[in-house]
């Protein structure tokens, strides 16, 4: 029991939670914004991988870390454009296209990585984003040694960007005309069009921005969480994001909460292992976010708050 409280009171746990959550926050927000406008993007797993490769490669070839993030975002957008072309303009099945893009983006990312990085027996590295404590030592020293210092100042800027992004998207969706237009496009694109909004443009925009966020989430893995790229390093995080969108009932603020909750489980699980060895199969922990999402769906289905036009293609002038 004291072991449990030891784990829970250690700053390391909470710092790990924030760190593990960051790519999930980006990915979940990216998937969420597209779904709000009616487009499911199952390309997420591949887009995250591609973002991880692109960001890393750009930095490895000498660019600034932020240029790496930007490059990842642009690469993500390109895949978002592809997804939108196929699902919005052509109206092809969203899940099929998304699955195709996942395979395409991850294999292409891997291929490009192989072509452009020198053969080495240990993966080449870059200097990743540094924690705030070294980026702004002045402020950090005020908290030195303290709990908050360890939790907050061990993070990199991207983590704060992810949290801010959740707030920003929550505000946009709830309170701005653009947010209303996005919601309308996801609820009834015909109604949006009848109000002078072009749902096609909205869908393109959200899918591309969303894909950019996914790619940044992937880039976090190579530019902040770690310093090299490995094929397969996204390890299903994209699918977890898809689940988290549902868990979050399509709300950015709840997506943030969901990602943190999942990350907490993961961080806790790793620490528990160190003390408890193997009394509980770790798979049970990993199942939690999926099961909670399914539960959330069941509870929510009654309220019918799922975007009503999710996955429904919209072609102008067709009935």
């Amino acid at each position, binding site marked *: 029991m004291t072991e449990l409280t030891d784990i829970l009171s250690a700053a390391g746990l909470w710092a790990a939670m924030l760190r593990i959550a960051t790519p999930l926050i980006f990915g979940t927000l990216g998937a969420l914004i597209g779904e709000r406008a009616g487009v499911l993007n199952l390309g997420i797993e591949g887009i995250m991988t591609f973002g991880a490769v692109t960001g890393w490669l750009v930095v490895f070839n000498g660019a600034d870390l932020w240029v790496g993030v930007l490059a990842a975002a642009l690469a993500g957008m390109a895949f978002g454009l592809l997804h939108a072309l196929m699902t919005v303009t052509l109206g*092809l099945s969203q899940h099929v296209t998304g699955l195709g893009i996942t395979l395409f983006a991850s294999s292409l990312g891997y291929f490009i990585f192989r072509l452009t990085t020198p053969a080495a027996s240990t993966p080449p590295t870059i200097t990743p984003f540094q924690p705030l404590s070294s980026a702004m030592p002045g402020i950090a020293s005020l908290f030195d040694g303290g709990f908050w210092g360890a939790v907050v100042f061990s993070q990199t800027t991207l983590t704060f960007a992810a949290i801010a992004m959740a707030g920003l998207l929550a505000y946009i969706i709830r309170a701005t005309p653009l947010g209303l237009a996005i919601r309308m496009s996801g609820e009834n694109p015909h109604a949006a069009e009848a109000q002078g909004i072009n749902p096609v443009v909205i869908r393109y925009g959200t899918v591309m921005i969303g894909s950019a966020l996914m790619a940044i989430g992937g880039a976090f893995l190579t530019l902040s969480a770690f310093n090299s790229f490995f094929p397969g390093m996204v390890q299903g995080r994209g699918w977890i994001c898809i689940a988290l969108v549902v868990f979050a009932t399509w709300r950015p603020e709840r997506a943030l909460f969901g990602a943190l909750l999942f990350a907490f489980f993961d961080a806790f699980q790793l620490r528990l292992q160190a003390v408890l060895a193997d009394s509980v199969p770790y798979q049970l922990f990993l199942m939690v976010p999926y099961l909670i999402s*399914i539960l959330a769906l069941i509870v929510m289905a009654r309220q019918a708050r799922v975007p009503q036009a999710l996955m429904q293609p919209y072609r102008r002038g067709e009935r």
Partner: protein
Amino acid sequence: MRLEKRESRSPALMLLAPLMAVAVALVIVGGLITLAGASAPEAFLKIITGAFGSRLALTETLTRCVPLILTGLAAAVAFRARVWNIGAEGQFYLGAAAVAAVGSGALGTILPAPVLIGLLALTGAIAGAVWLLLPLWMRLRFSVDEVVTSLLLNFVALLIVSMLLDGPMKDPLAFGWPQSLPVPDDAMLPKLIERSRLHIGLLAAIAIALLLHMVQSRTVFGLQTRATGLNPDAARFAGVPPVSTLIKVACLSGGFAGLAGAIEVIGVKGYVTSDLSPGFGYSGIVIAMLANLHPIGVVAAALYTAAVFIGADSMSRSLGVPTAIADVTVSLSLLTMLVAVFFTQYRIRA
């Protein structure tokens, strides 16, 4: 510029569109191959010989077809009735795990081979079906859309299998590797060709596709499920029982996916690991879509997908191009093929 549904489709178009798709994919892949320092024309030749050019190539292509046909049928039969089963991957694993559990137990040692094989195939199908009935139940009971639930259940299934492989199903002789006890040799499907991996599961899969086609096009059940998929209200009005129709469809769909897992165990692998499937369940969805949900088309689309992968994989080995080119080729040609199928149904009007 806008899209317009075609009134009719000319045979030339139906032939040309897929060829265009392949051509576009190959042009892009050719560019990547050139970047990798190999000759694109040589690579294309190697893809073809790699898929069909030797006994090994051909048998491997056909072996890979088997699970793809079955998961493709799983998606096709479900989508036709508007059951959005994205969970074939999970059903595949549970089918495989069930087969290993039953096959490696006492039954595996006492039953004669044909009975045992039949029993195991059925076991896999049932396990897969159950895993799809779960999201279907959630849809019928709570009106929860099955697209997301069946997708999420894939990961749950994989974790369950992984847990079983770490726990009760773990093979103590596997030196700690998370893999199941093997099924007995009697349970293994006979080979079609010696010294290859090709087994009679291929014939079974093709037979199932033909049978399904007959059922869908000739029988009352086929007509009724199609009606349910296209317009559930009208089907109900016409006396088609909606719930039992959906349940039957789910049993077929989940059953096919589970059977795919079962056959992969008793046809190829002999036991279950948590990396048994390189995404067969997901590929099945794309294959079904390429085939326009037509069972015979599924066989063709599965053959195409398998051939592209096996061919490109072998090409990468021959020419020293990074192995990832195989997946790039498959995914690109699936995407272009999707677009091509679309343009057989629509035209662009200025």
